[in-house]
């Protein structure tokens, strides 16, 4: 702040030493003569607009091209024999989606019911997991002793394949439906526990110092500092958990039956209607994508920076 202003140009060597005073030489700097500024600006704008158009075109073209390659590969494989091609699948899809809400008895219902059935199981299993996992994560993150207690158990249980839990569920709950929900619960709980706990540990010390300096009450610390700071981590955990739950439901339903996408896949395999299996795969993929995208959007809402 107190440094001497930098001189704009070096002083000419010819200046006698006596003429140099303590005040630095400040040389006014006239603006360069203006050329045809307006025309240059317009040309630049045109170049920018052109580049933007090319970029947008490329961004639309690339995914379309990707899908085209995928369909071609699918078609090529289908010509080799057992797998139905895109056209045959499309015809089957028109039938499936033509009457999505029919009900012919407990095990033969339209696609909409199947989707709803699967979503319901995922919703209940995941909801229970959130109800238990998020508070558990907070507690584990806050208290070192509990963290050290929980760590070995979580490390042991987390890598267990979801379906290994199914027999335990069948045994304890004596029914296929609660066993499927149990499987969802136990396999989707871990990302929420772990992410929430990590979030609690990563609350910046600065924020906690603010809490200490202001001497905030425990409830204020939780509601104004801890919870908002942990929320982004928690939502990441929720997103990962839903992903796991959706992966697991198909497998669980294959084994437990009932109205749902997983059982549908298995049923159509028994009927040897492979095109319906392919439709199921697409439906599962699209719903998984939609769940992921929705949660990403929710998480974005809670990003602060």
């Amino acid at each position, binding site marked *: *702040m107190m440094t001497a202003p930098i001189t704009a140009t070096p002083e000419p060597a010819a200046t006698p030493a006596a003429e140099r005073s303590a005040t630095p030489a400040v040389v006014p700097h006239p603006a360069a003569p203006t050329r045809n500024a307006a025309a240059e600006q317009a040309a630049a704008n045109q170049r920018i607009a052109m580049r933007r158009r090319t970029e947008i075109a490329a961004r639309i073209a690339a995914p379309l091209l990707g899908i085209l390659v995928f369909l071609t590969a699918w078609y090529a494989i289908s010509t080799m024999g057992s797998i139905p091609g895109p056209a045959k699948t499309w015809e089957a899809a028109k039938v499936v989606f033509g009457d999505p809400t029919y009900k012919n008895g407990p095990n033969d219902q339209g696609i909409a019911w199947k989707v709803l059935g699967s979503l319901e199981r995922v919703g209940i299993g995941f909801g229970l997991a959130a109800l238990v996992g998020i508070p558990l994560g907070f507690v584990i993150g806050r208290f070192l002793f509990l963290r050290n207690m929980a760590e070995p158990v979580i490390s042991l249980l987390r890598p267990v394949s979801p379906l290994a839990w199914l027999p335990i569920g069948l045994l304890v709950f004596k029914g296929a439906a609660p066993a499927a929900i149990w499987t969802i619960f136990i396999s989707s709980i871990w990302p929420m526990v772990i992410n929430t706990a990590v979030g609690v540990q990563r609350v910046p010390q600065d924020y906690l110092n603010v809490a200490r300096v202001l001497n905030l009450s425990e409830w204020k610390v939780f509601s104004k500092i801890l919870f908002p700071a942990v929320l982004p981590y928690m939502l990441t955990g929720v997103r990962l958990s839903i992903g796991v739950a959706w992966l697991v439901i198909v497998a669980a339903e294959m084994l437990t039956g009932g109205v749902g996408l997983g059982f549908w896949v298995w049923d159509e395999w028994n009927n040897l209607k492979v095109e319906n299996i392919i439709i199921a795969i697409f439906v599962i993929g699209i719903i998984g994508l939609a769940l992921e995208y929705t949660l990403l959007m929710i998480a974005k809402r809670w990003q602060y920076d």
Partner: protein
Amino acid sequence: MERYLHIEQAGMIFETRQGAFTALRDINLEIQKGEFVTLIGHSGCGKSTLLNLIAGLTLPTSGYLFLSERQIGGPGPDRGVVFQNHSLLPWLTCFENIHLAVERVFAEKESKAQLRERTQKALEMVGLTQAAEKRPHEISGGMKQRVGIARALAMEPKVLLLDEPFGALDALTRAKLQDELMRIVAATGSTVVMVTHDVDEAVLLADRVVMMTNGPAATIGEILSIDLPRPRERLAMASEPRYLAARKAVLEFLYQKQLKAA
């Protein structure tokens, strides 16, 4: 005379993996009500540690600190702290950030309308009425520090503690905020302890500059009184002999007596 903030033989030893580390020793300092004191020293000299002791964020391993004859045993709203990296809560607006502090201190005695008015006044004082509903990431670094100062002052603390509050700002913004801080302190009559590593900042703002020796086991080396009238005008100071002499004294302390191998 009643002692305001005073520190008696304070020392701080940290327990590290490598064993005990003496950060501060034999700190003795008295600060009068309404005084502006700056702490300066090379990095690692424990000036922030000393500030944290006054804030009560850490407790000394030896010696005592008193504020208005009461021993400091922990952090409290009678000491407003402005941190180097502003530490505003990013999910609250500027208004809410300040209101959180106001609420904590005055909620028992005042109505909601009065609390809102206090918050509004604090924003006004730092010239940020327009930014009330903005979130911290939407405003500049200088504005964030101003909100931090407003938050600390809105609690009407006995002492305002500033930990290199302008360290992360560019030189021009820093100068502007220094002027503003001088104006606010003059208007409120606050007692201020400010940690800085900027010689000009230390001299321009302070009634006394406390110079610290190099760590480990740092202590107060010299204390320089700055007997310049207020308000101090930045440009006038550039050619004020007393200012330049004070500046030179601090520079000599830092670069001759306490020269540190980089």
